[in-house]
């Protein structure tokens, strides 16, 4: 394709950064799509500013998108970008520190005017004051070249023309990394087809960027990254929230229960509501409630009526649902509560990921109120996590928390689309008649699952009343009997504990079987831990790793696994919540690796910590 020399790389991390108005997310998305089509493995992480539209050119207004792609399977969106595309001074300023020495920086020189420099807090231009020493800097007049390329398109003002500069940048980057262009051209047509002048503008800018790479002397080489050896099959890119949406709809189909989502918007969970609202033809009902309590209550009401009731939120909203979840514990009805964790406490840093709601979902209710907890580990794994949460909720008639976080929610990766027919079916056995001679006892349990019968309104003869007061065993009548209460507290706990028999054992990755150190993770640290462990092994050390997808109950072999190692390291984006649980439960002197920075771990740092432990 290109006449210039080609270098082969095994992996690249690119970060696009610019003003929120610069179309950075779209640029990143398109680059990612073209990359996926080439069969690279990849992972992405968008980084939105907290403000809707912070002042143009300001530091808080910077939007970022990082994509990591490789010729082998990868775990994370990468620690440090090899390439930074900075659309303005503010984007350069906020991202530069992350670029390692020797990295490439592409800057839009047109944006480096006095005003923008000042807004970014630069006294002198970093392009000329030596700030970029040690980096491969490409100065590109992105804006003006775009404007030039668009000359003559009817009905396009020069301001509008400037807006196409992200397509120029995209074209350039696609050229640089040997990606194809057809997909993007089709995309422009589809997305902007309604306004032909804009479509034309973006197409021209895009091509101009691509051609600029080919012709400019500034770019002497281009790069190729071979496809990864991924499992065969059909792939798509998917974000965590997208995968949850698919998983919930799948669970609805697999169980035959209509899906009812009660939600109140909150970052970073809102897109699940928004996405599900687009799938009404799956019989999905989305209810945007007045608050989180009502959202959860409506979902529980729908469950009472025989739906798969689901409610989504993030920390501050999950807290509000707690009393209702407590009711669900008492009612023993299915309910899935999604917590897309973000940095806290309180409002915290709403767009940033964290893993600090684990103890909340386990213990945030009054009384002894056991609830199973499932945690997703990667964007695509969210699909199975959602099905699994629903399966447990339905089978055991219990609320179930599903934990994800802001990095999974918005991050994306290729997903080997599962065969629909191979998905497990979920039995949802509604009670249809009496269960004790002529009588119906709403709390007479299935001896295996300990689940109570789910008799939905509309079923003749099974009329019954349930509520939040303590129930008499079997009959479900109100009971203040001391021994009954003690027994019921234990029964509810046992029902949840027994689920351990119905989930897979904890898998240990210990290739040579000789490791003395185990790294135990949960949730979105899956990627960074995997990458870190790979690094440590590459350096010749043995280390084992295991990842918990079930936080309550733990898989049955958890204690055995932990006790097999001399030392257990628990990396968490909190101050040690899983750590506390396993210390209490298994009395293992595990240690934590805790960074609460509102960012995924850097696997390099984590690798150092592991190495230090291994070498000790």
């Amino acid at each position, binding site marked *: 394709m290109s006449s210039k020399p080609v270098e082969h790389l095994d992996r690249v991390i690119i970060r696009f950064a610019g003003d929120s108005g610069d179309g950075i997310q779209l640029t990143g998305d398109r680059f990612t799509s073209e990359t996926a089509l080439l069969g690279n493995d990849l992972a992405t992480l968008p980084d939105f500013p907290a403000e809707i539209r912070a002042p143009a050119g300001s530091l808080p207004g910077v939007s970022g998108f990082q994509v990591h792609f490789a010729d082998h399977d990868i775990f994370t969106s990468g620690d440090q970008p090899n390439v930074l595309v900075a659309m303005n001074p503010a984007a350069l300023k906020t991202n530069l520190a992350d670029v390692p020495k020797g990295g490439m920086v592409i800057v839009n020189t047109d944006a480096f005017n006095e005003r923008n420099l000042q807004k970014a807090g630069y006294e002198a231009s970093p392009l000329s004051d030596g700030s970029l020493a040690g980096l491969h800097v490409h100065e590109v007049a992105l804006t003006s070249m775009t404007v030039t390329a668009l000359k003559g398109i009817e009905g396009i003002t020069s301001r509008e023309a400037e807006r196409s500069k992200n397509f120029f940048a995209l074209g350039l980057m696609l050229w640089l990394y040997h990606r194809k262009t057809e997909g993007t051209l089709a995309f422009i047509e589809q997305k902007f087809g309604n306004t032909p002048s804009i479509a034309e503008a973006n197409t021209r800018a895009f091509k101009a960027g691509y051609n600029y790479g080919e012709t400019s002397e500034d770019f002497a080489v281009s790069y190729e990254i071979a496809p990864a050896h991924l499992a065969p099959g059909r792939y798509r890119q998917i974000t965590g929230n997208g995968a949850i949406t*698919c998983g919930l709809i799948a669970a609805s189909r697999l169980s035959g229960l209509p899906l*009812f989502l009660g939600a109140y918007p909150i970052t970073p969970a809102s897109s699940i509501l928004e996405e599900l609202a687009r799938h009404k033809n799956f019989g999905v009902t989305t*209810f945007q409630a007045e*608050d989180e309590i009502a959202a959860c209550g*409506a979902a529980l009401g729908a469950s009472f009526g025989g739906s798969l009731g689901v409610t989504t939120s993030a920390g501050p909203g999950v807290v509000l649902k707690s009393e209702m979840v407590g009711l669900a514990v008492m009612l023993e009805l299915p309910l899935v509560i999604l917590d897309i964790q973000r940095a806290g406490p309180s409002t915290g840093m709403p767009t940033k990921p964290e893993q600090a709601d684990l103890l909340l979902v386990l213990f945030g209710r009054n009384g002894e109120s056991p609830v199973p907890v499932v945690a997703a580990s990667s964007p695509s794994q969210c699909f199975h996590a959602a099905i699994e949460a629903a399966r447990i909720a339905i089978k055991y008639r219990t609320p179930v928390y599903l934990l994800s976080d802001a990095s999974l929610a918005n991050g994306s990766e290729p997903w080997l689309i599962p065969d629909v027919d191979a998905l497990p079916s979920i039995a949802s056995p509604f009670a249809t008649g009496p269960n004790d001679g002529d009588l119906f006892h709403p709390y007479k349990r299935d001896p295996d699952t300990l689940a109570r019968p789910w008799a939905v309104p*509309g*079923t003749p003869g099974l009329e019954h009343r349930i509520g939040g007061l303590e129930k008499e065993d079997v009959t479900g009548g109100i009971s203040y009997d001391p021994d009954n209460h003690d027994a019921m507290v234990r029964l509810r706990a046992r029902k949840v504990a027994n689920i351990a028999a119905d989930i897979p054992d904890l898998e240990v990755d210990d290739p040579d079987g000789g490791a003395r150190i185990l790294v135990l993770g949960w949730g979105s640290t899956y990627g960074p831990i995997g990458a870190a462990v790979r690094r440590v092994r590459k350096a010749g050390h043995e280390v084992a790793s295991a990842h918990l997808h079930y936080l309550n109950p733990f898989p049955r072999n958890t204690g055995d696994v932990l006790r097999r190692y001399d030392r257990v390291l628990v990396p968490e984006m909190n101050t040690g919540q899983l750590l506390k649980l396993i210390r209490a439960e298994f009395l293992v002197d595990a240690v934590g690796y805790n960074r609460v920075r509102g960012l995924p771990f850097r696997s390099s740092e984590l690798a150092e910590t592991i190495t230090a432990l291994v070498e000790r």
Partner: protein
Amino acid sequence: MSSGNGGLIPLTAKDFKSDQEVRWCPGCGDYAILNAVQGFMPELEIPREKIVFVSGIGCAARFPYYMETYGMHSIHGRAPAIATGLATARRDLSVWVIGGDGDMLSIGGNHLIHTLRRNVNLTILLLNNEVYGLTKGQYSPTSERGKVTKSTPMGSVDQPFNPLSVAIGAEATFVARAIDTDKKELSEVLRAAAAHRGTSFVEVFQNCNIYNDGAFDFVREQKENRIYLRAGEPIVFGDRGVRQAEDGSAEVVDASTPGILVHDPSHVEPSVAFALSRLTFDTVGATPLGIFRSVARPAYDEAVADQIRLATEQRGEGDLKTLLHAGDTWQID
């Protein structure tokens, strides 16, 4: 546990009595209301299994236990939210929400007003005794100013809500009031409320003889102060009548005064209904009973179901495989 009947054999009040012993204080107004509701239920001609009573917490909220239907005694204040989910997901059911003034106007006030504006197909019975019964006698958001209770030894200092004004201000489509012991009128109101598509809001004056005895004596005992509202009829009671005053308010005048209001609950514009809701013990010592407002507006559950139907018509019933394969996909071999 008696069995359902699939709606074949006519039901009687007795069929709606559950086996639970009723546990309100002797003399409590809730008994009369339970009685009226159980007496009315057969008229619905809906099988018991299709009826659900949802409540929060409070004396009034124990109601579902006593009804041989499906029922949920949930948590304080949240019954309207839970019922909204149930009624939206299950349009085939007759869903009733029942609770006290604390439950629905204090902690649950927000769910109540949102339910009303949404117009979910529910019937809400607010058993107003102007006090917190279950927690043993603190003042409530409907207690009159100056009320001395356990929590207000020097008298309460806040203006109470007028439940009907709140409901009308919150875009309610059906608003009515009845008295616990006035079985005939209460039954009539229940009838109209059940027939109304959307959220029906019924305030029932309920005497709590333990913590707020006699709160409604001015209409409960002094029957001459009852202003019965009858659609199409002039609003008169005894030798008095209600007229639209010049300032838009409703006023009580001699029944022979010209311009007595002819009641029209179906009037879409809510201002008269609002004006009528202001006639209370405080303002005129009498108060209207019956249906203040009953207007048609699409019910939430209906509209939601319509969208699902429309989406399915337009795009075909969702196919899981297609969903999973949406967007750009690529094959790796």
